[in-house]
């Protein structure tokens, strides 16, 4: 296993320790239970936005903690949804009196653990809402769709709304709208290797690709011969647009996220075609992100995410953000 780790069982803790050492001015890591909180939390009178996911997707979610985005992130074991007590402890640590929004990616584990957390937090008197992210068009049944790249966008939108002082119902509504208007699809050129497993989750010959993969090393729906980047992009974008029903002239945010082992050099080649494709379909690429934003350990490949924009979402997207992985504005 070609990894820079020590004991696989220690990887998550040690990675969080490194994160803490790298960003002491932005965040505080709690180790028992695991959560990462904004350094100045709780921010009095502000809605708190909390998200969680298994580790191995970095910068999601721990890299999105900071002003203008998440108040706290709960990192689980590798690819494993965090537990209710993590959410509860994070809630206690960052709640500022205006309520809490949990942003949940739609996996059985994500849903079940946050449902429990919601019940427990409400028992403790917290005002908690939740929004489900389910953007993966590779999954046909819409209710069952996985949460993927849209998580980043929903967290940014919700964080900006919270930072602007909007009440919980408003923050929830905006996050829900962002979630509803986002779609993703991914492609893997290699499997990832889970540290505790020590070998690739699936075998993928060098001349093949897995279309419609998730971000946990789940195999995709379809294995095909590896195509040229342009063709791959068209497959992803077509599947997304087919599901989105956006009118020509619509503004979109287009994200190309590497899955961990694909270099920027390639991501820009992907974005080039995506941009042309969207333009040819009459869409306006008003905002974009190209880089490693939602990853799957050391998987090669990428994910395309589109978010239908409107002036309100654009303003929230453009609002200042100061986190390890996204930084702009003042």
């Amino acid at each position: 296993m070609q990894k820079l780790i020590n004991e696989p069982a220690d990887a998550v803790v040690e990675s969080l320790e490194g994160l803490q050492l790298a960003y002491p001015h932005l965040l505080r890591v709690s180790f028992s239970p695991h959560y990462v909180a904004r350094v100045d939390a709780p921010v009095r009178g502000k809605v708190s936005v909390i998200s969680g996911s298994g580790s191995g997707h970095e910068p999601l979610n721990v890299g999105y903690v900071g002003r203008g985005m998440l108040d706290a992130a709960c990192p689980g074991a590798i690819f494993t949804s965090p537990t209710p007590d993590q959410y509860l402890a994070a809630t206690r640590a960052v709640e500022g009196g205006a309520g809490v929004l949990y942003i949940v990616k739609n996996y059985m584990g994500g849903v079940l653990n946050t449902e429990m957390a919601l019940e427990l937090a409400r028992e403790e008197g917290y005002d908690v809402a939740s929004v489900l992210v389910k953007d993966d068009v590779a999954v046909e049944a819409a209710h069952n769709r996985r949460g993927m790249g849209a998580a980043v966008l929903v967290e940014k939108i919700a964080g900006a709304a919270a930072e602007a002082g909007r009440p919980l119902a408003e923050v929830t509504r905006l996050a829900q709208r962002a979630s509803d208007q986002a779609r993703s699809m991914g492609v893997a050129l290699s499997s990832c290797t889970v540290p505790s497993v020590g070998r690739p989750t699936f075998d993928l010959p060098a001349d093949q690709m897995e279309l419609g993969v998730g971000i946990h090393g789940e195999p995709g729906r379809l294995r095909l011969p590896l195509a040229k980047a342009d063709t791959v992009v068209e497959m992803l974008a077509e599947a997304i647009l087919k599901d989105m029903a956006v009118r020509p002239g619509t503004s979109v945010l287009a994200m190309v996220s590497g899955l961990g082992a694909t270099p920027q050099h390639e991501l820009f080649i992907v974005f080039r075609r995506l941009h042309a494709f969207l333009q040819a379909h009459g869409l306006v690429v008003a905002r974009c992100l190209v880089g490693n934003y939602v990853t799957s350990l050391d998987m090669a490949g990428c994910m395309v995410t589109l978010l239908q924009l409107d002036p309100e979402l654009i303003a929230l997207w453009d609002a200042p953000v100061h986190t390890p992985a996204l930084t702009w504005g003042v």
Partner: protein
Amino acid sequence: MSQEISLAHFRAWLLAYAEHIEAIEAQLTDLDAAIGDADHGANMRRGMERLRARLADPGLQCDDIGALLRTVAMTLVSTVGGAAGPLYGAFFLRAAQECQGGSVVTLVQLARMFRAGLQGIQQRGKAQLNDKTLVDALEPAVVALEKAAAEGAPLAVALEAARVAAEAGMRHTIGLQANRGRASYLGPRAIGHQDPGATSLYGLIRTAAETLGAAQPASLASRR
């Protein structure tokens, strides 16, 4: 008089289950790698390690079966994570609620506890039979246990019937397409692979059969 299962029997069961999970961790990993994300083995092992530590803690206040199973539920919920953590947690929590304060349970009570546990899992996870989940191993076991209890079968016979039913349910998942959980993303590609959760759940029933029906529990059985 019907046979009784003591607190010590339950402790022996949980320890046997922890050992079993450690023994089949690699198998669970492989099964989850094929149709999931390769973490079911690690998740369950992490939960079992923590559970073993809790059970070994001399300060642990668990003087009745309900309290013991509640501790198990809480430990699993806060350490396993993923889909399995809350589901196994729901099983033990609901089972615990069925035997509040009891220091021994009968087969009839045990069947009721397992049924409640199954209901807890289904309430949380909404899985039905043939959805290719741990329900496919648990539900047949519960049905077999209930039948044996109704027939007044001896405890060991009832548990063995449950084990056989759970094993058949587990194997049955091989042919299924998944409707719940991570394997559901695979569509027909999930067919041909045994469900990891059903596999770990079968282990729970199997170790129950090995421990709960014993004349004397395997571990320090002084309390009986």
